[in-house]
């Protein structure tokens, strides 16, 4: 038990790890009689992985005690309460790249616990996003980034294509820029029966969407010395994209209240032409049983803003090991197991984006063998996106708090209570107070 996982896995060749074929041969150690206490994110898309925990228990002789299994927002509250009450008497917790900076130093640096050969098998950019203040505080389980899904048949109708070209002066094709998305959304819209596009409109979801559009437009959230800078010209342009589409009725009237389920189910209902969304929905969208547009869905890389940058707000669901853990080797073994090749395949088969380079290839191979060309295209698109376009919000503890000042003002601009400039100026004033209170300025 005293031997570190680093030593245990030295015998495993790096080639075998990268290929992923030898995952089952890794020695996860022997922790006979030890009970590992964990707090995990719950929910339909996260649960299938937990069915694998029994295999780790069998290999190591340890027992896993799941203390908590709830959605991430509830888990976040519980972890904050644990910090406040000094009850961090558990070892492994689900985490997320956007939330991790809030938790200070409660999680240990995994660079010291997990062998470099294991870390080398992960997509480098994703590991970079998992690092806070130079410390690898989390091991990524699967990633999120969004790309553009569209109803294919809309682009195959010649009369419609001719009408579009006559009105906008360029051929109708899946959009490459957000300006084109605006044009096409307005062209396709026929409210209340059909909408050009849609977006999530509340909580951190709309903050993230605005943030990626801000970056694509060439703006930034903060200056280098942490002064809020999103109320710039680029910021107003980014917010106006949402406001213009809302005012034109090209998006459903309820979008300021939409979250991921609403946009996912809305697109699957066949009443929305273009939908920027996570890969986790892809199979559902294209399923003839579940979706009104099954077999009629296309996917293209997220479009570019005026700065020539593609939107790529990204985050990863991860696992962290607490500093207070009484057996960090066992905890490291557990998180390595849950993110190994075979475990990531369990999630990749369901459309969740892997964080290991080799799993991308294995998953695409399986889809190809099964003749599922759509999922191959989805994975190819999202792989490029994760490698080239993905970026996280600023990895600072105040991100969620700043987001809570921002999103109600973004909504206010959408529903016409404020102009985009007023909304962003007011949010910037409040964000400045947060940054000053936190000692950044």
């Amino acid at each position, binding site marked *: 038990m005293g031997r570190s996982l680093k030593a245990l896995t030295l015998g495993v060749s790096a080639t075998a790890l990268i290929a992923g074929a030898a995952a089952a041969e890794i020695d996860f150690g022997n922790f006979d009689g030890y009970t590992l206490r964990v707090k995990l994110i719950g929910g339909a898309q996260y649960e299938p992985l937990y069915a694998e925990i029994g295999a780790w228990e069998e290999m190591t002789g340890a027992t896993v005690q799941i203390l908590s299994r709830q959605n991430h927002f509830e888990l976040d509250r519980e972890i904050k309460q644990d910090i406040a009450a000094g009850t961090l008497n558990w070892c492994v917790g689900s985490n997320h790249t956007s939330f991790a900076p809030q938790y200070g130093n409660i999680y240990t640096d995994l660079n010291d616990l997990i062998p470099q050969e294991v870390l080398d098998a992960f997509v480098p950019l994703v590991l970079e996003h998992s690092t806070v203040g130079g410390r690898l505080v989390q091991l990524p389980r699967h990633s999120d980034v969004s790309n553009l899904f569209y109803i294919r048949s809309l682009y195959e109708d010649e009369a419609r294509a001719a009408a579009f070209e006559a009105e906008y002066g360029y051929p109708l094709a899946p959009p490459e820029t957000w300006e084109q998305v605006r044009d096409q959304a307005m062209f396709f819209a026929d*409210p209340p029966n059909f909408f050009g596009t849609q977006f999530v409109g509340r909580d951190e979801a709309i903050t993230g969407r605005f943030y990626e559009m801000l970056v694509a437009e060439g703006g930034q959230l903060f200056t280098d010395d942490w002064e809020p800078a999103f109320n710039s010209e680029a910021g107003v342009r980014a917010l106006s994209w949402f406001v213009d589409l809302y005012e034109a009725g090209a998006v459903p009237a309820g979008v300021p209240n939409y979250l991921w389920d609403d946009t996912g189910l809305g697109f699957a209902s066949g009443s929305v032409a273009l939908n920027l969304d996570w890969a986790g929905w892809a199979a559902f969208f294209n399923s003839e049983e579940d979706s009104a547009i099954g077999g009629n869905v296309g996917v293209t890389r997220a479009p570019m803003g005026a700065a020539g940058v593609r939107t790529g707000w990204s985050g990863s669901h991860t696992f962290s090991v607490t500093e207070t853990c009484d057996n960090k080797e066992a905890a490291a073994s557990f998180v390595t197991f849950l993110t190994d090749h075979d475990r990531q395949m369990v999630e990749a088969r369901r459309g969740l984006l892997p964080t290991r380079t080799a799993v991308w290839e294995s998953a695409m191979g399986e889809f190809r063998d099964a003749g599922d060309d759509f999922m191959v295209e989805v994975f190819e698109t999202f792989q490029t996106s994760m490698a080239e376009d993905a970026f996280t919000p600023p990895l600072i503890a105040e991100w969620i708090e700043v987001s809570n000042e921002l999103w109600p003002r973004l909504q206010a601009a959408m529903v016409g209570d404020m102009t985009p400039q007023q909304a962003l100026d007011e949010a910037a004033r409040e964000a400045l107070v947060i940054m000053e209170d936190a000692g950044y300025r």
Partner: protein
Amino acid sequence: MLRALRVRQTALAPLILLTPAFTVMLFVVALPLAFSLYTSMTPYRLIRPETLDIFIGTRNYVRLWDNAAFWAAFWRTILFLAIALNAELLLGLGIALLINKLTWGQRTLRTIMMFPMMFSPILVGFQFKFIFNDNIGIVNNALQSLGLTDRAIPWLVDAQLAMFSIIVAEVWMSTSIFAILLLAGLLAMPRDPVEAAKVDGCNSWQVFRHITLPFLMPFIFIAMTIRSLDVARAYDIVHVMTGGGPAGRTELLWTLIARVGYDNARMGEANAMAYVSTLLSIAFTVFFFRKLMAARRYMGGAE
């Protein structure tokens, strides 16, 4: 000597018997209240436990005084309470009166009536969020199919409709509490005064106005008192349906306090807000309790 001891024992007996109750009250109510009062005078952040030791006096309360979003949520909460509780009372009273008329199937209906109470508020929130969804929701689809409107009504976005939709969900979930309590009152009501009034030629409205309603008033105020205390359960409904938005249009004290306390981790500031909202709860409770006492005095013939 023995007699003096016995007298002292007799005098102490009530205190000794009350000790368990006082102990429970001390640890479950008084100490947490005192602790949260103290934290409301600190810049306490959940993720920085050391901030609990910094005393800043009334700074959080002074900040609240200038916090327009807080006062908007405060008055909106009062409006929400006033509309939701009165709507639940009227509907509950109507249902109770109708069920009281039944001679067959009353028990079955009483059971069915309690179904909404069995749902957790989170589920009620999700249910009504999809019912009122502008694009795929059943309400808009029904209105459009019936030809009553040709547009997608933004139920959860419009300034008035969003609050209306939340109140509908809250009323659906809680009306049965009023109905059950008022039905209990109706079943306990003596028949003699009603029959005497009918013999004297009173019509149904006069019987209801001068006999049934005064008799039910204590039950109404008990129901009001209970509901004004547990109406904060509506937090889940608001959280799921609108999250307090859009643009703060449905922000109530409970959603604001939860966001400040947990999401922003500013528990000191959130506790200051919670203390002000506790005063609001006490005001409602005192008001209804005084009304209850007045109604009981009236029924007892003192007035």
